[in-house]
């Protein structure tokens, strides 16, 4: 167990592991994505209230879930990096940020697009959308802070502290936004609610969530590889790697 752990903690091994895993995550993700989209857009029946408009949940719900999942991953790996001084944990955290920001952005956009036919306006201060917007700001702050600190080691640790503070804050933000909303528009139907959903509508959603999860992991592997290469660019093994792969291509 420890042996495996130490092996994983060496950058070349970590890089190789990520390289091996990447296609095993990416291709299943694509297949599931195709199945899920076909199931959601073609096979599932139209909703009798929302018509075909509801079908955007097949993109919206998975991206909302992954926006949160990625942030938590980022915070947990940051904490690991801060506590045990593991540089590779910071690689994972740094790779998480752009992926999570992209999912959050997608969740916001699809939410807005959904809002147009449902509410007749592109933006409603719905509590979930508002929370997502704040989450997006948190991702931006994380990335800007990394950008501002030139020294990688400093950027890792500083952004790590920020991620941990952010993850403690997220439930509070979420709760406060819910509370704020309940005061302003009492008993309103939250438009992104997915009430008791029928089975033939549900399974494509579950497939899509799984597909997105695999896609996120595949992207994370790519991000990790880029991070490791960037940090180890002066190391000998990177030079050897470039000699063998770079010149072949």
């Amino acid at each position: 167990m420890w042996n495996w752990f130490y092996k994983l903690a060496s950058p070349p091994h970590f890089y190789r592991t990520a390289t091996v895993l990447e296609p095993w995550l990416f291709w299943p993700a694509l297949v599931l994505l195709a199945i899920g989209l076909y199931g959601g857009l073609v096979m599932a029946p139209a909703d009798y209230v929302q018509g075909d408009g509801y079908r955007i949940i097949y993109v919206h719900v998975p991206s909302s879930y992954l926006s949160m999942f990625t942030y938590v991953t980022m915070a947990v790996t940051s904490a690991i990096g801060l506590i045990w001084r593991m540089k590779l944990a910071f690689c994972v955290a740094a790779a998480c940020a752009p992926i999570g920001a992209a999912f959050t952005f997608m969740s916001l956009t699809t939410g807005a697009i959904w809002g147009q036919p449902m509410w007749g306006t592109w933006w409603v201060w719905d509590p979930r959308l508002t929370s997502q917007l704040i989450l997006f700001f948190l991702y931006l702050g994380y990335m800007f802070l990394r950008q501002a600190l030139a020294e990688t080691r400093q950027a890792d640790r500083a952004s790590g502290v920020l991620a941990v503070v952010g993850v403690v804050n997220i439930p509070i933000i979420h709760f406060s936004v819910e509370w704020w909303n309940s005061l302003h528009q009492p008993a309103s139907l939250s438009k992104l609610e997915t009430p008791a959903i029928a089975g033939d509508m549900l399974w494509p959603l579950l497939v899509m969530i799984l597909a997105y999860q695999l896609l996120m992991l595949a992207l994370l592997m790519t991000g990790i590889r880029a991070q490791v290469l960037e940090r180890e660019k002066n190391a000998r093994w990177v030079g050897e790697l470039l000699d063998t792969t770079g010149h072949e291509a």
Partner: protein
Amino acid sequence: MIRAFFMVMRRELTVAVRRWSDLVMPLVFFIIVCTLFPLAVGQDIEILNDIGPGAIWVAALLATLLSLNTLFRDDFEDGSLEQLVLDKEPLTFLLLAKTVAHWLVTGLPLVVLSPVLVLAFGMPVTAIPGVVLTLLAGTPALSLLGSVGAALTAGLRQASGLLALLLLPLTIPVLIFGARAADMAASGESIVGPLYMLGGISMLALTLTPFATAAAVRVSLD
């Protein structure tokens, strides 16, 4: 340890008093931002009444943000921060002393000034205790959260924009509860609920943020 805590606080306060322009600037800023609202929205007293509590809270948040820029940067540049890190007393504690001093010279004056602004927005006199209480319960959380952001950006030169970007999302819960409670106070409702929430957030911030601030200061000095 207690002695060191008060010594750090005393030094902060002495420096703050000697640099009184830095002390007064956020307060003037607070008032100016509040002045902008009637000028932008118009002098309809009903509208001003409605937006008053929110405007006061947004202005308080921005004024705190402005004052946070210098919280650690001066110490970073003149080397005092290194000395605090190398002190035998726990850094968490010494930085908390600095943060408390920061609240005393910015948060507390904002609280004291707020009744004037309540009246300026045409809210009833009975709203004053509510607004003052919400600011009193909420501004400590702003200073505490702010100290984390200020510590993270201490070593950066042009960091005020970054500081705002880092901090504003984190302070949203304080803003929501504070502004909403102030609003309820203005319309004569009971504000016990949100006031508890504000106090709770401040207490939580008091227990957790000093550690994050200390970690951030160490990182900034590395």
